[in-house]
């Protein structure tokens, strides 16, 4: 514990050396001393300005009746009309509720999964086994959702494994994909299956950074594996967990079109129709770029508000993203 705090403290030696001087002097002294830092970040800043902020300014089309042929200059300004159009959509609240529900499930079940898996990997003593199993877990990440969707449909079909087992047990066949009560679980489980191995990589890197001496000392103190995990492994992973959590929160309402689109059937619309599938129908297929952008802005504003709140909370104990 003490060690971690130490690391996060500002560099006291330098802070005190700079303190007595006036604000401007302090600024100049800092610049002189750390000018390299300011040069280093320049390429990054240019990148963000050019490739992110410049195109982002194009989001104003959310407040226009954007006509591609006329361009941004030639299109009329319509104020909040596009937002009103979205909010007046009769199924908007269903769509929003579905999105938020699935997002919450993903956060509660999907987010901790790679953390737990990384800890389980950490308990594997046989090096070779560990490496092989890790490499296998990472495979499904390379399958596209079209392929995974096909696998899920097949697995849950009447001839699929699950129904085969049910058959042996004398149970009736269930067509899982056309019953809405299973839809959300299928989404969450398939997402975990596909990306949990990939997600562990980052935590494994964090665990790899742990000093083996710490474990040895803990063993001397009589700590068992569980205690070691609790008091050494997890705390070391914590900054990474927190950062990933915050980034997740920021994109809360973005579930990923590909997955849902490939698992959705008309029978599960009422629970599985989400913002992205609505955007696809209303924006992309109808070529309404203003509407698409307006929905995107709406999602982002919500995400940003959530991130702001959680980041403040995070700053109380640890450190936030900014």
């Amino acid at each position, binding site marked *: 514990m003490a060690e971690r705090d130490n690391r996060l403290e500002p560099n006291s030696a330098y802070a005190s050396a700079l303190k007595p001087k006036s604000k401007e002097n302090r600024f100049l002294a800092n610049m002189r001393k750390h000018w390299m830092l300011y040069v280093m970040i320049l390429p990054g800043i240019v990148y963000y300005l050019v490739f992110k902020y410049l195109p982002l300014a194009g989001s104003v089309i959310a407040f226009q009746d954007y006509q591609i042929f006329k361009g941004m200059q030639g299109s009329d300004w319509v104020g909040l009309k596009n937002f009103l159009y979205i909010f007046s959509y009769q199924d908007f609240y269903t769509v929003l509720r579905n999105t938020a529900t699935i997002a919450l499930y993903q956060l509660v079940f999907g987010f901790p999964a790679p953390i737990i898996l990384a800890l389980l990997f950490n*308990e594997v003593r046989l090096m070779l086994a560990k490496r092989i199993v890790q490499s296998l877990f990472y495979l499904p990440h390379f399958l596209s959702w079209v392929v995974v969707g096909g696998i899920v449909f097949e697995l849950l079909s009447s001839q699929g494994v699950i129904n085969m087992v049910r058959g042996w047990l004398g149970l009736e066949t269930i067509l899982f994909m056309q019953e809405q009560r299973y839809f959300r679980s299928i989404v969450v489980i398939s997402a975990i299956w596909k990306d949990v191995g990939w997600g562990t990589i980052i935590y494994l890197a964090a665990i790899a950074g742990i000093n083996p001496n710490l474990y040895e000392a803990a063993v001397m103190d009589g700590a068992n594996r569980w205690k070691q995990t609790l008091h050494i492994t997890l705390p070391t992973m914590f900054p990474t967990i927190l950062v990933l959590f915050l980034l997740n929160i920021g994109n809360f309402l973005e579930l990923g079109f590909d997955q849902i689109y490939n698992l959705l059937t008309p029978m599960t619309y009422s629970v599985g129709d989400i913002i992205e599938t609505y955007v696809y129908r209303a924006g992309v297929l109808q070529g309404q770029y203003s509407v698409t952008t307006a929905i995107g802005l709406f999602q982002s504003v919500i995400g940003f508000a959530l991130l702001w709140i959680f980041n403040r909370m995070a700053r109380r104990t640890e450190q936030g993203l900014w």
Partner: protein
Amino acid sequence: MKQTYGGKLFQLFNYLFLIAAAATMLMPLLQLLAVSFSSPIAADSKEVFLLPVEFTTASWAHVLQNEGLWLSFGITVYITIAGTLISMLFSVLTAYPLSHKDFLFRKPIMLGIIITMIFNAPMIPFFLTVRELGLMNSLWALILPGVIGTFNMIIIRTFFMGIPKELDDSARIDGCSDAGILFRIYLPLSKPVMATVSLFYAVGYWNTFSRAVLFIRDPEKWPLQMKLRAYLTSPEELAAVNLILGDYDFNTTTLKAATILFATIPIILVYPYLQKYFVKGSMLGSLKE
């Protein structure tokens, strides 16, 4: 080390669980592999499970002779290597000042960057920007517009922030500049995260697709994923022979399977290679000797 009874039981279950789960993850690729080595009729009738039915190497022979595929392969290898190197450089250079307590604009810049993660630019303005830069049809269009993955950069930053500041101090006393500290102390200590982020970038570049669709018009510059997509949507062209005319030991289904694997296996092999960096405790080991 002695193990309790409970510990042993846990170990057993842990192994069983991990092996069972890993098996499910291997299966889809095994099946693709089996299909790619099966006869067309068996493949189309979905008879193939994990082993080839009526084994034949015809599909693979045909795919490996496809020059267009190798050309795209070369392009993808090129952008993967070049892109990963450039991205790592840009990301480290950005992450280091942002992890540094003495860097004055740390917070506002960080906030500015995070905003770009949450607010996405609409496609048309993004397209126009890249086009105005003259990057159309250039491989740079596949690298520069995403040269810093914000997520990756933040991961690096988080790691840098975890490095004890005493190391900075002692290095500074030894006469190191900020750049010196970054390259002599931070980077060697961050091997696991460098390996991780390089992997993330490499996989990202390997799977380059949507940007290529927007910016690359010249088919000779198509990366592998785009070529793959071309074949998956109109697989007759992959056959490049008139399937009506003769009997062949492959058809579009088996060729598709072989092509997907051709485009996937190389990048999958990168991970086991990088794994060694995750195994050793390489960071703090150097601190306390």
